[in-house]
């Protein structure tokens, strides 16, 4: 199968998964016994506003019509009104999506640097002190919650050494980069903690391959062998793991935003949960799922660029 046929197949699968995702989000409030309007409103529910909500969400219509309203609304970019702010969800969420995505990509960039540096270092120094230290440190990072790690960085680097601001987002691009450094570092370190384990073992495995021995025998420098022959092959599986981890990165981003007071989707999500603002929760859940699907599509496609031998079945 060539690349284009594969892309077509993946896109069809993607539509199917998106359909499943909307079904789940749609079904979530409706599958639980009881009146969804009362369920969504919780303590705030009165007969009157429950009736209004039923009207707004179309809960008094047949299920298939409700689902059509829900999906077509999303397709048009209108996701209903927030119950708390009384404004369209699309406006509320729309402003915040770019902030969260930039933070996630910032974190990915840092993670790439950290993973490559320490992954290669650890593999080259296999079994020596540096290797053990790197593995131990990242095991620690892996097993601590990111919000705690973020607070620790605030204590040390923002409150202690005063190198970075404690919280906030800044005004200009330079300020953004400076303000978002600590949250991005927190997320990046945690992401690398997973990736380094994989990259290290992959590099060690690849170093034993025949073509690496050949490359060395040809008299290529160790640096060249490592970057051109070993790394390119070792990265394949690390990129797969990255795709699988992207969901965790997004989830982590939302949590970290609350720690560093960044006005992204996370803050809105947690406010909305406390306020039982269900349409907002719904919208954010769908958007994050969509991001994960798209990123994993790119990950799958990247294989053929990294390794020309890859054919898609």
């Amino acid at each position, binding site marked *: 199968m060539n690349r284009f046929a594969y892309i077509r197949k993946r896109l069809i*699968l993607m539509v*199917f*998964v*998106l359909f*499943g*995702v909307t*079904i*789940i*989000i749609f079904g*979530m*409030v409706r599958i*639980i016994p009881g009146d969804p309007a009362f*369920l*969504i409103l*919780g303590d705030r529910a009165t007969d009157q506003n429950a009736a209004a909500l039923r009207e707004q969400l179309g809960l008094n219509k047949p299920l298939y019509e409700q689902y059509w309203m829900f999906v077509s609304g999303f397709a048009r970019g209108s996701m209903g009104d927030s119950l708390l702010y009384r404004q369209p969800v699309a406006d509320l969420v729309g402003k915040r999506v770019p902030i969260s995505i930039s933070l996630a990509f910032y974190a990915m960039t840092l993670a790439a640097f950290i993973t490559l540096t320490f992954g290669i270092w650890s593999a080259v120094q296999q079994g020596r002190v540096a290797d053990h230290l790197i593995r131990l440190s990242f*095991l*620690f990072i*892996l*097993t*601590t*919650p990111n*919000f*705690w*790690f973020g*607070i*620790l960085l*605030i*204590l040390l680097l923002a*409150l202690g050494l005063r190198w970075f601001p404690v919280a906030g987002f800044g005004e200009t691009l330079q300020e953004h980069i400076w303000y978002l450094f600590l949250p991005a570092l927190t997320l990046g370190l945690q992401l690398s903690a997973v990736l380094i384990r994989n990259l290290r073992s992959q590099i060690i495995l690849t170093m034993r391959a025949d073509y690496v021995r050949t490359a060395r025998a040809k008299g290529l420098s160790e640096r060249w062998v490592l970057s051109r022959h070993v790394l390119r092959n070792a990265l394949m599986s690390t990129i797969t793991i990255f795709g699988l981890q992207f*969901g*965790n990165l*997004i*989830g*982590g981003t*939302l*949590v970290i935003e*609350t*720690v560093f007071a960044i006005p992204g989707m996370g803050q809105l*999500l*947690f406010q*909305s*949960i*406390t306020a*039982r603002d*269900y349409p907002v*929760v*719904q919208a*954010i*859940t769908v958007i*994050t*799922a969509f991001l*994960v*699907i798209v990123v994993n599509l790119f990950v799958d496609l990247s294989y053929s660029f990294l390794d020309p031998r890859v054919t898609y079945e």
Partner: protein
Amino acid sequence: MNLMSEQVLHSPTLDLRFASSTGIRKRVKQWRLNATLLTGVGMLCVVVLVALGAALLTPYDPIAQQLSDAFLPPFSPAHILGTDNFGRDIWSRIVYSTRLDLQIGFFSVLFPFIFGSLIGVLTGYHGGKLDVLVMRVVDVLMAFPFLVLVIAIMSILGPGLTNLYIAVGVVGWIPYARIVRAETLATRNLEYVQAARTVGCSTARIMLKHVLPNAIAPALIYVFTGMVLAILTGATLSFLGLGPQPPTPEWGAMIAEGRQFLLLAWWMTTLPGLALLVIGVALSLVGDGLAERR
């Protein structure tokens, strides 16, 4: 017959190479223990003992307030790890929270493990339409960021422990199903399974007695990773106020409470996080150690 005896000779329990060594060395070799596993098990034993003996180890009630003793730093005469803004003893709160967090780790994994393994063996053994259907459901659930889906479910069910188990369980079974399915695919056509079929064993018996025991080991190893994830998720939810409600001591909630007093009392946030670190490292080492053994 030949095949049978060959299998028996190659099974690890009858490994004759170490028969001559004696004592602990023999045990270590027999059970294929390694430093990672031993360290992990040791740490985990300590954590479990602390959880079980909470009442003996703590001089104070974890929720008893003593406002006159608020914000005492660590190594104060009466409070080894200091006190929080309500004058509650932090050591006592951390120790009692160990119980809760271990419980979260255990129950969030138990049911997904059982359900996922059964689904895995069922789809792997039968294949066909059921397999395709389940794998598509897996595709869809994997599209959600785990934490976001858990939070969305909790937002409907409301905060609390039982709801936490449900929310984590909705997605939690997937890794076990995938792992066991893959192992089952590798196992289902081996000689002993064919033999069982020839003798006329029922499908259910073959799946549960012949295939599952041989396919379950990697899933069991993943249990420890799953527990770390569950405990971190539990702590995150309670950090966000969706977990066990105050004044119940829970590490995530303690970290959240300490946030407002970062400059005044750094110990309120840092110490509960260290407790999470210990339990996480212990479980990870056990998982890594078991994986190394294979």
